[in-house]
């Protein structure tokens, strides 16, 4: 069995119904999973001895600019042994999801970046602070409603 099929097969059998989409585009395998199960699926993918996705390369979000299911979280995970990269996607309804920092330590800063840029909060994150923008900044710049030129007065200047 090919490795891609093996991943899909294993997730299907371990998490009945949580896998809602399998998509392959230009050689990238992308799985869409249930947002409630994301932490459990990540833990499974890391700890399964055959799959062994031991590295989290990136966590980011997509702002779909829609009323429902506005944000999609995107995880890129890599298996050093199998030399394979997998993309996990999950649509979240509330601006809130579970952290995967407990599974891959590297997700700590990636999730902070997602919080900073999109305002998505992560349950049980050890240190959920802004990473690039100043602490007192009110907006989340990568949201689609934030103008590319910025908002005048959003970063306070010293008084005259």
């Amino acid at each position, binding site marked *: 069995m090919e490795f891609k099929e093996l991943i899909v097969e294993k997730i299907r059998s371990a998490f009945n119904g949580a896998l809602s989409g399998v998509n392959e*585009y*230009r050689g*990238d395998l*992308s799985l869409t999973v249930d947002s409630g199960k994301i932490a459990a699926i990540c833990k499974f993918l890391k700890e399964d001895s055959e799959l062994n996705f*031991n*590295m*989290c*390369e*990136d966590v*980011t979000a*997509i*702002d779909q600019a829609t009323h429902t299911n506005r944000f999609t979280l*995107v995880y*890129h995970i890599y298996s*050093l042994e199998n*030399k394979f*990269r997998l*993309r996990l996607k999950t649509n979240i309804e509330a601006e809130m999801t579970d952290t995967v920092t407990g599974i*891959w*330590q*590297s997700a*700590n*800063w990636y999730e902070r970046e997602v919080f900073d*840029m999109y305002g998505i909060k992560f349950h049980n994150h050890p240190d959920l602070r*802004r*990473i*690039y*923008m*100043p602490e007192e900044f009110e907006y989340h*710049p*990568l949201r689609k409603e*934030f103008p*590319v030129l910025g908002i005048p007065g959003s970063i306070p200047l010293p008084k005259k």
Partner: protein
Amino acid sequence: MDRILKEEADSQILKALMADTNITIEDALENEMVLNMGPQHPATHGVLRLLLRLDGETVMACVPELGYLHRGYEKMAENMSYLEFIPHTDRLDYTATMCNNVAYVLAVEKLAGIEAPKRAQYIRMLMAELSRIAGHLIAIGTFAMDVGAITVLMWAFREREKIQEFYDLVAGARFTTSYTRIGGVASDVTDEAISMIKAFIDKFDKAVDEMENILNTNRIFIDRLEGIGTLTKEDAIRYGVTGPSLRASGVQHDIRRANPYLFYDELDFDIPVHTEGDCLARYFIRIEEVRESAKIVKQIIGKMPKGEIIANNPKRVLPHKTEIYSKMEELIHDFMIVNFGMNPPAGDIYSAVENPKGELGFYIVSNGKGAPWKFKIRSPSFCNLQVLPLIVKGAMISDVVAIIGSLDPVMGEADK
């Protein structure tokens, strides 16, 4: 104090100020101190700010603060065409500009389904490897300077200067190259440039030998780095460290070999690995990688194929200027690509390459329009910096400088 009382009688500020007056230090040796290192500090390689909690000279804890060079490239990319973003990739990791140019166009080509001609791909490999040498030379030079060996900085910059002359010859700019184009490269490499690069690479090993001799026989240099900032294999993987820092911790992972792109599978080169994981191992890895890159450059020059340097795909790839001025069809395509973008089909891709600092990845979501809907830069410096609090814990202040130098972050890339 009086001025504050008169003008800014904010009750909270006042309370905090008054509370401070009662601090008594009973035993000076028992007190921890918070030291703010950076953002304006020459050893932090840019605008990295570290908050260090110190007990005497020992670091108890460290909190890195980023964002002093945040320019919002991901937001800007969502508002410009794919072609317009190429110059911005120069400003990510500004010590290895060509590598970024190549990484970006590879991502866009994967998204749009374009394949560049073989000669263009070989030129890209050639420039990326030269750029890797330049990036590593800066890393080695500034790292040696951080721990007190200033001579090596001059030697490393002398060699790097020669590489920048090739950039000038090939791309027309020494520093902000913007050399690659979607579907190929901007201009062909002349035979003159090839022979110059060949002459440089033939003498290059000797220059590296010189640098290595002065550093490896320097007792102070070795003593300051050996056993400092040790990163274990497990921690390196757990924290998502990539590049030389990962290989110095004993993981033989290089994307050029693991998931080959361009024509790296046709070339013969080794991936150096060390198992110690300390600052000295990270320095050794860089020196060895520079030699490997020189080996690759030699092979590329030997194998360089003839042919086109840009793909023939009129709807997506910019036509040549002479054709625009003489042919109607090409003029229309040029107008459409420049004004409305090249509109790759809807879909999302992640493309990663091995940069001098580690894995540089681009995640691009297209909705079929001229600008990306979502553009994410997975920058290696950002991810590698995350491990800093772990490995500086228990080190001395002077070691912090060595550890930052050995991780070699570039803040242009870390802050995006």
